[in-house]
């Protein structure tokens, strides 16, 4: 039984330890660790402060089938008036399986006139995308979409 040199064993143990800490199977891999549903939940808690999130009002437009996860068009619109005393104050976008659960936070105000933002995002895997809108009265509304990704983002190696 030939034992490998110490350095590689140490590297392997270090990697395995790191993987175990991240709560994933200790497989030596170069792929970034995925965010877990718990990370998604805690990222959402950071925004809502534990307040209840109702479903509705928010419309999340993402293509249900994405060929290239490197650039996925996303539009969030909120069916809510934008009056000074009652408006959408911010829109937050999260995902389930990218290395980080946060995608973006958009801060609006009553002068926006329409609570709608668009951008392009990256998705490393088929997963759920969640949008949460915070209203000026402190209530939270959300919508989520399941997206199927055929070509994942940011897993390719850089030469």
């Amino acid at each position, binding site marked *: 039984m030939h034992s490998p040199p110490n350095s590689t064993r140490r590297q392997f143990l270090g990697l395995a330890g790191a993987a175990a800490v991240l709560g994933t199977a200790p497989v030596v891999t*170069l792929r*970034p660790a995925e965010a877990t549903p718990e990370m998604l939940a805690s990222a959402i808690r950071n925004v809502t402060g534990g307040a209840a999130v109702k479903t509705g009002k928010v419309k999340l437009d993402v293509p249900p089938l994405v060929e290239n996860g*490197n*650039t*996925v068009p996303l*539009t969030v619109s909120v069916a809510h008036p*934008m009056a000074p005393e009652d408006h959408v104050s911010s829109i937050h976008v999260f*995902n389930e399986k*990218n*290395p*980080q659960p*946060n*995608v*973006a*936070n*958009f*801060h*609006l*105000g009553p*002068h*926006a*006139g*329409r609570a*709608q*933002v*668009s*951008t*392009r*995002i*990256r*998705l490393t895997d088929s997963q759920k995308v969640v949008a949460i809108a915070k209203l000026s009265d402190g209530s939270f509304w959300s919508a989520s979409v399941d997206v199927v990704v055929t070509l994942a*983002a*940011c*897993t*390719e*190696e*850089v*030469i």
Partner: protein
Amino acid sequence: MASALINVPAKAKRGDIIEIKTLMSHIMESGFRHRASGEAVPRDIITSFTCRFNGTEIFRADLFPAIAANPFFSFFTTVTESGNFEFEWIGDKGFSETASASISVE
């Protein structure tokens, strides 16, 4: 190197809700990619985008690595007076870019 594309209507009526589109050329390196040798490519992203109208902030976005390269944003605002939109992108490694666009409101 970096350059911005801004789309703002030149004219609008008072009280109109207009759409503003912006695109900034930037690699948005997520920090999660690896070289063949195994070392991680360091993160280099735009972390914040702000739009001000005549000095007042009307839109702000906090960005994370999940935003695609060359960040594109579209958002809305109500115009009440003629003036200047100032756009600002701030990012890692001291990245900072600005752009502006004017609108005449009748």
